């Protein structure tokens, strides 16, 4: 992984260029050039029961961040600068994941399918459906429904794995009106504000509606135009973050 003098000079030049131009292709070259470092660091975490491929992906994300933030003028070697960033990303991956299990494809697909089933049933029934009702509508067993729901909570910790609710995410940011924003901000300035305020508007809204307005997840989903399961994932992720912060402070 060591570069010779000529390679180092060239890389340094590319970093300087990138710092100025932010050219994507250049960034990719820099990342590729340093993937060896990412792999090397990822390997240090292979004894924790995760496949190397996944770890390398996480490390690559850390490498990406390091490449973006690196200031070549500072006089540091890039690998010296990047190592703590990459290791930090890997550590956070494990800390956030906890006991998360590898989820089989079948379960992932059911999870995605259930979002629609739940939405439809909620509309028909005028309330949140029971597990039995969901199982019947989806033509699967109750156990499978529970398994698929639980899988959604496993996804909450890795943005790499998250089912693509991307369309939903975009429309959600657009939904948040100035009035709603003001409401949330004023409520939380007084109590608990630093804890809730750290989250982006979407999560703040959901936390507020669930725990301060007493709306159910289905009601929040209807209000925001997203699926109940998406609300569930976002809530679970926010709560996990709050708890891990409590751990850091305590």
């Amino acid at each position, binding site marked *: 992984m060591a570069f010779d003098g000529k390679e180092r000079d060239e890389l340094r030049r590319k970093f300087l260029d990138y710092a100025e131009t932010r050219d994507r292709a250049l960034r990719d070259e820099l990342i590729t050039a340093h993937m060896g470092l990412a792999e090397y660091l990822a390997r240090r975490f292979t004894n924790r029961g995760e496949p190397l491929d996944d770890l390398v992906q996480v490390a690559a994300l850390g490498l990406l961040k390091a490449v973006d933030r690196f200031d070549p003028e500072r006089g540091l070697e890039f690998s010296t600068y990047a190592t703590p960033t990459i290791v930090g990303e890997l550590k956070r991956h494990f800390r956030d994941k906890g006991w998360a299990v590898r989820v089989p494809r079948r379960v992932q697909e059911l999870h995605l399918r259930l979002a629609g089933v*739940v939405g439809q049933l909620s509309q028909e029934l005028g*309330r*949140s*459906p*029971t*597990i*039995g009702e*969901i199982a019947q509508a989806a033509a699967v067993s*109750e*156990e499978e429904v*529970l398994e698929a*729901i*639980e899988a959604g*909570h496993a996804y909450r910790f890795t943005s790499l794995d998250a089912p693509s609710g991307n369309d939903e995410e975009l429309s959600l940011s657009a939904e948040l009106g100035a009035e709603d924003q003001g409401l949330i901000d004023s409520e939380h300035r007084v*109590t*608990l504000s630093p*804890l809730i305020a750290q989250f982006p508007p979407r999560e703040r809204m959901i936390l507020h509606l*669930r*725990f*301060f307005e*007493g709306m*159910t*997840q*289905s009601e929040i989903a209807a209000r925001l135009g997203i699926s*109940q399961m998406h609300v*569930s994932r976002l*809530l*679970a992720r926010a*709560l996990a973050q*709050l*708890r891990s912060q*409590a*751990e850091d*402070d*305590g």
Partner: protein
Amino acid sequence: MAAGVASRVGFTLDEVEDLRIAIDELCFSLVGPRRRTGTITLRYLLDTDELAVEGSGRFTDGLGNDPVVSALSEQILAAVVDECVLSTGEDGPEFRLVKRRRPS
């Protein structure tokens, strides 16, 4: 696990989710912000229209028997379950929660 038990009582998805959040929050309060060594035991008591969950922590690290609950935790718990009590038991922190089914 709690979800499976809850589905026997015929809870809706919203209610199952609330229960999951409550149990997570309460187990976290049994352990507190620092890592501890020991065991947590959960008992599920089913009735026709409600589920009670009793949890207790037995720790071997001598770090105390009080549950640790923040203001935000209390707010969260109040929103998701009908009854909730945290206490200092003889052998460790304990909790009891009750969640009732909404009549349909």
